[in-house]
């Protein structure tokens, strides 16, 4: 019944290719698509429709295909929703239909079709609102769907590429090739992209000659000439999926194995040669497998050598399909031409019977077309047996990219066409030709007449939507799903708009057309991720002690983009035990902590003190040389963005300490204010962070450990007080030592050249064998016991200084960034969230983020920000943001949803007087 036509097509009959579809083995040839090979193998039923599970076959032959979606299976991978018309046949290709089970031929979901009259358009909105949409969603999702995403991570190759060019030509048909060749010949850097695997567009099947040469041969030669030009690229299998600002165009290049390369191209000029798409005719039963667009039928026959049947009917309201009827007849197919127009101007092609003023009454057949009933102008109905019904409702230019680029659409006598093009954009070839005006659809007879095949939208649905008031195209689209399928309505949406115009008795321009949003064709999410998966997902910085941490058993985790040891595990030790052991070592002995990620930014110049006075909420200009001071930085709305310790190195020189996560951000922040607000001020900002490594020695025996390592610095508390720094040598290494503390114990941050950090650590560890490596988790517990602030954990984007107990800064009689905002009524409310300590009365740990309520009451009084099990006290410690919290010390609250009692307490559970910092 089916097969190939001898002497037709561009397939390589010497290279057979075996593949599987829906579990069955088939054979095609090199040069086939999955679609053409299936047609040649006699397969007509490829899919079930999205909502109604109706049997569906191929409607188109290119990227506009609405029905033939398949999942491609590969070992350990499943690539969903690929179009059979875009899948190049390859040996071993295995594809299955989407949305049918167990197979497209025997589909249990087809029962939906039987009740279809009860699920009209908008049904889901109307019927499933009680008790809630969520109750029904899983069932509907299972019944109406597309392909399945594989369970395993995608194994196909996904990657990104940036490119720049003088001219980007989208579309490798005759017009695009001509434009690209001309630009390349003029020496321009050209990128030509073509969605097909062959250049030539319609030349591959329309039989036209170019420059006296056979069209497909001309295209191949012209393409090779462009590709050979210096700086030119020809990208096949590449869909331009969107045009964005400033000449940016996204290209999606399909890679072998169904992966994808996403290109971001910046083009000086954009040439749109995207061709045009044939529209379907809307008549009852127009979705039966065997009914397809006339030009698609021609392509399957002329390009792929597929014999589509013994008998064909071509239904058209347009002259172009006459050529298709002629080509079918010339290939030996008995062809009848049914022209919907009463008095067509063209003569019938030789050997083709013609019916004028015809109407399609219905189509016949179960899972494939067996015939069609036509009514002639005199009202007589004839049933004609055929295996192919080729339809043409005229043509519409493909202007998705043109409109995205800012191009305007106009209507001339009801026909859509491109109007004014923005600068640097040109539309050429058949994309520039006005559409053939859509004619009113066939009189609606019995049976469903489909407008949008993929979204299962019928003419009756559009009529119903219009009756219900959805008369704007954008509303119609959302209510009916017209044009919302993975094909983006390339085939059917325009016919639907024309139908709406007819139903509402409005002109085409009054109805308009929705703007086609990117992507023009679907792009898998994996392509957006590209290679950024697994280890490559996000940058994770390493400290200069990375190798040392590994040898010490450090459990490395991501803290603000830095790989840092959570703790150092001894053999057989649980993580919680390690954290406790490390924290107690700092309280009772001495710990070594890698503080290298701390931000270090030098600020120098005659105006450095003035500048930092503006950038910190706390006073900085008064800081004495040799001393250190803790400070908060605020943004313009007065919210805390970072905290840290600043040193005054000299009259005109400071070292700003930023948090680890804020190191880069704060350097940019300072430079932005310097450059944009106060360019006349004499101050320079120089980030040094990763050039300097830091080992923090903390605990009551910290001083002894440093002395043992050998230092030319006097560590006596009177000589070297808390919040001061000294330059000197530690273990023979040039160092700057800062006495500042995050742990609550006497601490020394020893700063050295990053390359010598490991040497420093090893020297201290060797000189002080009792020194214990301390990870980030113990470090954070120690600060929690002490009630110190952790910006970004205890604070959010609204937290102001007063909320964390530094409210005096708002009363300072100087200007600084964010100050004005601190005086707004919002910032002066007494019931703002304030940071307080929290005690769990039952001694059980508290969950971070847990909300607090009044006992027996409702409504949040605040929430837990930091929590942990105190190694020092053997009980939970926590901090919370509580409404007006500082005035509520001692008050008992309850955990929301649990009822457990907690008491508001001072922040510092440990050494609230700070005696241990100075000892």
């Amino acid at each position: 019944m089916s097969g190939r036509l001898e002497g037709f097509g561009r397939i390589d009959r010497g290279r057979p290719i075996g593949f599987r579809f829906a579990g069955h083995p088939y054979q095609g040839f090199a040069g086939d698509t999955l679609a053409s090979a299936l047609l040649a193998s006699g397969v007509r039923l490829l899919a079930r429709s999205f909502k109604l599970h109706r049997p569906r076959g191929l409607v188109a032959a290119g990227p506009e295909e609405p029905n033939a979606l398949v999942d491609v299976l590969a070992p350990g991978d499943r690539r969903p929703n690929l179009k059979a018309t875009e899948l190049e046949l390859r040996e071993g290709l295995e594809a299955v239909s989407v949305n049918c089970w167990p197979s497209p031929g025997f589909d249990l979901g087809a029962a939906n079709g039987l009740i279809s009259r009860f699920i009209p358009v908008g049904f889901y909105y109307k019927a499933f609102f009680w008790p809630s949409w969520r109750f029904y969603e899983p069932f509907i999702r299972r019944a109406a769907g597309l392909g399945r995403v594989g369970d395993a991570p995608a194994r196909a190759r996904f990657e990104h590429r940036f490119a720049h060019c003088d001219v980007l030509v989208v579309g490798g048909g005759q017009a695009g090739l001509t434009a690209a060749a001309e630009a390349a010949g003029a020496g321009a850097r050209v990128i030509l992209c073509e969605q097909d695997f062959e250049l030539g567009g319609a030349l591959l099947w329309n039989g036209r000659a170019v420059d006296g040469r056979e069209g497909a041969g001309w295209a191949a030669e012209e393409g090779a000439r462009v590709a050979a030009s210096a700086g030119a690229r020809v990208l096949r299998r590449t869909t331009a999926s969107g045009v964005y600002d400033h000449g940016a165009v996204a290209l999606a290049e399909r890679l072998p194995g169904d992966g994808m390369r996403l290109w971001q191209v910046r083009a000086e000029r954009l040439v749109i040669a995207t061709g045009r798409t044939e529209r379907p005719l809307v008549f009852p039963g127009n979705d039966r497998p065997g009914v397809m667009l006339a030009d698609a039928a021609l392509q399957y026959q002329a390009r792929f050598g597929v014999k589509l049947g013994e008998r064909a009917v071509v239904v058209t309201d347009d002259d172009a399909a006459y050529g298709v009827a002629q080509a079918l007849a010339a290939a030996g197919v008995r062809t009848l031409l049914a022209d919907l127009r009463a008095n067509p101007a063209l003569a019938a092609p030789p050997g083709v019977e013609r019916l004028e003023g015809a109407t399609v009454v219905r189509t016949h057949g179960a899972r494939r077309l067996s015939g069609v009933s036509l009514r002639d102008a005199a009202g007589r109905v004839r049933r004609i047996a055929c295996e192919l019904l080729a339809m043409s409702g005229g043509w519409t230019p493909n202007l998705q990219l043109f409109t995205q680029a800012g191009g305007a659409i106009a209507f001339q006598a009801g026909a859509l066409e491109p109007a004014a093009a923005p600068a640097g954009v040109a539309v050429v070839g058949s994309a520039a030709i006005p559409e053939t005006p859509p004619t009113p659809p066939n009189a609606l007879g019995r049976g469903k007449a489909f407008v949008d095949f993929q979204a299962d939208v019928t003419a009756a649905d559009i009529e119903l939507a219009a009756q219900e008031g959805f008369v704007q195209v954008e509303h119609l689209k959302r209510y009916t799903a017209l044009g919302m399928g993975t094909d983006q309505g390339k085939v059917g949406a325009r016919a639907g708009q024309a139908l709406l115009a007819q139903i509402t008795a409005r002109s085409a321009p009054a109805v308009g057309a929705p703007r086609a949003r990117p992507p023009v064709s679907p792009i898998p999410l994996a392509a957006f991720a590209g290679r950024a998966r697994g280890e490559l997902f996000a940058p994770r910085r390493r400290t200069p002690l990375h190798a040392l941490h590994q040898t010490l058993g450090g459990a490395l985790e991501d803290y603000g983009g830095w790989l840092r040891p959570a703790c150092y595990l001894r053999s057989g030790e649980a993580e919680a035990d390690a954290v406790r052991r490390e924290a107690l070592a700092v309280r009772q002995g001495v710990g070594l902590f890698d503080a290298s990620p701390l931000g270090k930014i030098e600020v120098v110049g005659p105006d450095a003190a003035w500048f930092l006075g503006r950038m910190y909420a706390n006073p900085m200009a008064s800081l004495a040389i040799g001393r250190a001071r803790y400070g908060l930085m605020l943004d313009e709305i007065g919210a805390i963005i970072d905290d840290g310790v600043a040193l005054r190195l000299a009259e005109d020189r400071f070292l700003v300490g930023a948090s680890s996560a804020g190191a880069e951000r704060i350097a940019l922040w300072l430079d932005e204010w310097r450059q944009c607000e106060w360019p006349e001020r004499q101050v320079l900002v120089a980030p040094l962070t990763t050039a300097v490594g830091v080992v923090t020695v903390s605990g009551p025996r910290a001083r002894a450990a440093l002395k043992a390592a050998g230092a030319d610095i006097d560590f006596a508390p009177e000589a070297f007080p808390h919040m001061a720094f000294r330059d000197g040598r530690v273990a023979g290494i040039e160092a700057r030592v800062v006495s500042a503390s995050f742990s609550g114990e006497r601490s020394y941050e020893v700063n050295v050249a990053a390359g010598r950090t490991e040497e420093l650590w090893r020297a201290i560890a060797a000189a002080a064998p009792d020194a214990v490596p301390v990870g980030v988790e113990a470090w954070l517990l120690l600060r929690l016991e002490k009630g110190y602030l952790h910006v970004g954990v205890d604070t959010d984007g609204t937290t102001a200084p007063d909320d964390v107990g530094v409210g005096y800064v708002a009363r300072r009689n100087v200007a600084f960034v964010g100050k004005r905002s601190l005086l707004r009524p919002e910032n002066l409310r007494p019931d703002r969230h304030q940071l307080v300590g929290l005690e769990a009365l039952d001694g059980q740990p508290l969950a971070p983020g847990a909300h607090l309520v009044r006992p027996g009451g409702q409504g949040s009084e605040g929430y837990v920000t930091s929590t942990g099990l105190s190694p020092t006290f053997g009980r939970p410690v926590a901090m919370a943001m509580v409404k007006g919290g500082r005035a509520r010390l001692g008050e008992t609250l309850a955990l929301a949803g649990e009822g457990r009692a907690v008491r508001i307490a001072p922040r510092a559970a440990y050494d609230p007087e700070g005696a241990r910092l100075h000892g």
Partner: protein
Amino acid sequence: MAEQGASGVVMTPAIQVRPLPVASFAVLRLGAAQAGAVIAAASAALGAALPTTPNRAAGEAPRALWTGPLEWTLVGSPPERLSALEAALAGSIAHLADLTDGRVGFRIAGPAAAELIESECPLDLHALAPGDCAQSLFAGVGVLIERREGEDGFRLYADASLAAHLEAWLAAVAEGLVGRGSGDSG
């Protein structure tokens, strides 16, 4: 398949990525006051004219790269040159940051060198002439890219804390690149 040899991060016929030992990496920043005179004095001390055209580089040891208004990155300065520079800057509004321990460098050569970088960097490397430099992103992190006169490919500098990240990305992207900068996608 990219081979990771002992001598380089990537060694394929199309791409060779080698770590570039950086003996000295410093950033010089000057205040706007009397900048012209300070630039002249600094250039004399360094023995290399600080380029005043944006994104241009000059000199050999040190190589001075314009990386911002009144900001230069000095690569490979002999210690005595840096001392001379410090002396020449005395009394001026200036800052010299020694970032040697905080930066890494890579040499990226081979016919697919530009493609390798363009895979993850939005710069137009075609527009980067010999003697040019530019700052951009590669694989999401800040990089300084330099194209030297008479040298195949590019030099790429980045923060030392990101060395492993960059090496992993360079190796992953290089896999499969065969050096077809133009032509037909096949």
